[in-house]
């Protein structure tokens, strides 16, 4: 960090709109959501004031108070008090307050004023306050506190210019005199309440808002669950039924390109590398881009609508039975997108042991990297047709299975860790429902889609090239494609591991594809596409066609079909349970504070996956024969 630029910190209670303001000031697309505890780490950016000065802005996790609290709140506290080891004390704090909740949010502002750092109050969500009938008086608030107050609506960019005006040098000094006794929590509380009474007058009669009405249904002990399941069903159903068309486009583009290359180049290794390795292998993964985008779109909707906290509220009773609080459900829900932000989000959990347990089971929530694998396998089980309610239901089942297993393991682990030193108090805010910030969702989805393509163009591309080489060399001069294959590196690997994976119903090639997917789960789809086209490569017309059809036609040496129902189920089960994501392990090690947790988790999950797959295949074949 440069010394010349001033550091401005955004502080405030959770869900007050700090990150929305951060994005508006810096032009970033940091994660925003309508629930408490979205930001759990420090985010940096830059902004330019109307006077041309450049300021470094940091977004902090939300915190209710400068005392106590979960690890994420600790970060905010350390920065504000100048005790953070990598961030210097900010020269200005912008305290973001929710105007519709002023009496509660004001308390933190008073605590920050006590720290005697220059402070500007961003009185956010004035639109919401007005809608609730609150009569705001920002001038009065500024008078009472002795600090500048800027009313604003961050999600519409209103008040940003005024805020920037207030951020000019010299920064407004902390007030010389404060209206309460410094350090006395009781006196501070009383001052806060009387001030918020004066500057945000509430209507006398409480009217029931739209959120209240919605909650009567969505939090209903019976109807609530109906909608909970219905929402997730609708999510999977639309992923299946809407993504088919753009998927077809990508598929035709892939086939067109393969045809073009085959037409332009003469037969040879390099042409094979391009058509089989790159276009065939990477293309098999990229085909699932539309579904990935849809999944992120829907998760984005869930996060920004306010439903996330309702889901956690519904789950609270259930979570208590496994020894976790409802709050732990939020990180688990985030893990449906990716386990890494899910693991990070456990920072919002007060209890250290509860946090460890949640970190341990988070990768069992099916993340988006598993989606391509599921999308390849599920239609094979259900007769190959895509779309439809049956597949959506089956998908729901997959996600439920992962979740229930996570809970069961959490329960056992929680019991073993023993009781907690600190009583974990479950404080869950239920923010009002909101319409999403569409431009943010749009950017967020594009961002994730772009990241997926980047990964396809780097890691996955690299592995596909190496895999192609391993299936091609060393060469054998023979007419029998089977013999040629078993002479190659992959052939030797697959012959070696076949006895190991055969009890699960897989042949050596599927085993090899599983091995490659420890680099990244999606690689499995590309590897299968490559490994199961080789035998037909002497028959030019047969090389193309969908992987799924090729797999369905595949047989063992004795002519029996290879991808039977039990075998595909076993594969599916393996991917539901196995931990095949190095970045996740790295983050787990950091967040849990020890490599032992990451290694233990990896070994446990992988062994669990293999045993479960074995059982499914063995029991399945027993009953189907």
């Amino acid at each position, binding site marked *: 960090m440069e010394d010349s630029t001033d550091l401005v910190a955004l502080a405030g209670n959770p869900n007050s709109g700090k990150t929305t303001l951060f994005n508006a000031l810096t032009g970033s697309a*940091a*994660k925003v959501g309508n629930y408490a505890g979205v930001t*759990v*780490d*420090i985010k940096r950016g830059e902004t330019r004031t109307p006077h041309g000065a450049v300021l470094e802005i940091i977004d902090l996790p939300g915190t209710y108070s400068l005392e106590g609290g979960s690890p994420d709140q600790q970060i905010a506290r350390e920065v504000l008090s100048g005790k953070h080891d*990598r961030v210097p004390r900010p020269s200005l704090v912008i305290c973001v307050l929710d105007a519709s909740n002023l009496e509660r949010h004001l308390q933190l502002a008073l605590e920050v004023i006590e720290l005697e750092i220059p402070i500007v109050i961003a009185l956010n969500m004035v639109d919401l306050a007005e809608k609730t009938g609150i009569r705001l008086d920002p001038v009065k608030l500024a008078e009472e506190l002795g600090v500048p107050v800027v009313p604003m609506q961050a999600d519409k960019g209103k008040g940003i210019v005024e805020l920037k005006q207030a951020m000019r040098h010299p920064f407004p000094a902390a007030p010389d005199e404060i209206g309460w006794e410094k350090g006395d929590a009781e006196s501070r509380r009383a001052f806060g309440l009387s001030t918020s009474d004066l500057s945000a007058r509430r209507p006398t009669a409480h009217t029931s808002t739209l959120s209240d009405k919605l909650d009567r249904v969505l939090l209903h002990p019976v109807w609530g669950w109906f909608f909970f399941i219905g929402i997730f069903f609708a999510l999977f159903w639309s992923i299946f039924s809407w993504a088919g068309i753009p998927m077809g486009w990508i598929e035709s583009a892939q086939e067109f390109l393969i045809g073009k290359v085959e037409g332009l*180049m*003469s*037969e*040879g*290794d*390099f*042409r*094979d*590398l391009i058509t089989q390795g790159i276009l065939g292998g990477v293309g098999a993964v990229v085909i699932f881009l539309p579904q*990935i985008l849809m999944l*992120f779109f829907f998760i984005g909707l869930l996060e920004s609508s306010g439903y996330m906290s309702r889901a956690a509220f519904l789950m609270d009773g259930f979570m208590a039975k496994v020894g976790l609080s409802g709050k732990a459900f939020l990180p688990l829900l985030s893990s449906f*997108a*990716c*386990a*890494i*932000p899910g693991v*990070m989000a456990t920072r919002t959990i007060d209890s250290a042991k509860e946090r460890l347990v949640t970190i341990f089971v988070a990768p069992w929530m099916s*993340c*988006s*990297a598993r989606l391509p694998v599921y999308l390849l396998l599920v239609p094979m089980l259900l007769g190959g047709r895509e779309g439809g309610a049956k597949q959506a239901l089956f998908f729901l089942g997959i996600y439920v299975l992962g979740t229930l297993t996570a809970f069961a393991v959490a329960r056992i682990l929680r019991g073993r860790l023993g009781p907690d030193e600190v009583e974990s108090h479950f404080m869950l805010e239920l923010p009002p429902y909101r319409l999403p910030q569409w431009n943010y969702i749009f950017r967020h989805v594009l*961002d*994730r*889609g772009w*990241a*997926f393509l*980047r*990964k396809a163009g*780097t*890691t996955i591309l*690299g592995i596909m*090239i*190496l895999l*192609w*080489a391993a299936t*091609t060399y060393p*060469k*054998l*001069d*023979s007419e029998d494609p089977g013999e*040629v294959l078993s002479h190659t590196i992959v052939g030797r690997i697959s012959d070696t591991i076949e006895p190991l994976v055969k009890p699960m119903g897989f042949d050596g090639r599927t085993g090899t594809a599983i091995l490659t997917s420890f680099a*990244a*789960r*999606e690689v499995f789809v590309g590897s299968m596409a490559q490994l199961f086209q080789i035998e037909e490569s002497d028959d030019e017309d047969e090389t193309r066609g969908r992987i799924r059809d090729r797999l369905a036609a595949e047989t063992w040496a004795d002519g029996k079909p290879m991808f039977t129902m039990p075998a595909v189920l076993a594969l599916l089960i393996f991917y539901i349970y196995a931990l095949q*994501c190095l*970045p*996740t392990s*790295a*983050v787990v090690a*950091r967040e849990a504070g020890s490599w032992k947790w990451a290694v233990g988790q990896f070994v446990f999950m992988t062994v669990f996956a293999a045993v479960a797959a074995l059982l499914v295949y063995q029991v399945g074949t027993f009953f189907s024969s």
Partner: protein
Amino acid sequence: MNPNALSDWQTWAAITAVVVTMVLFIRGARKKKKSGGCDSCGPVGCGSDPE
């Protein structure tokens, strides 16, 4: 299959591509080890890279 494989430019091109890929992978792994970061987060990036 091509009997005189090594005399053909396509084989050389393919082998070069493979070697370049390997070098890039090894370099990438080294860099990552040094920075300790998780830039290849998840399938889709985590959006929450550590500081």
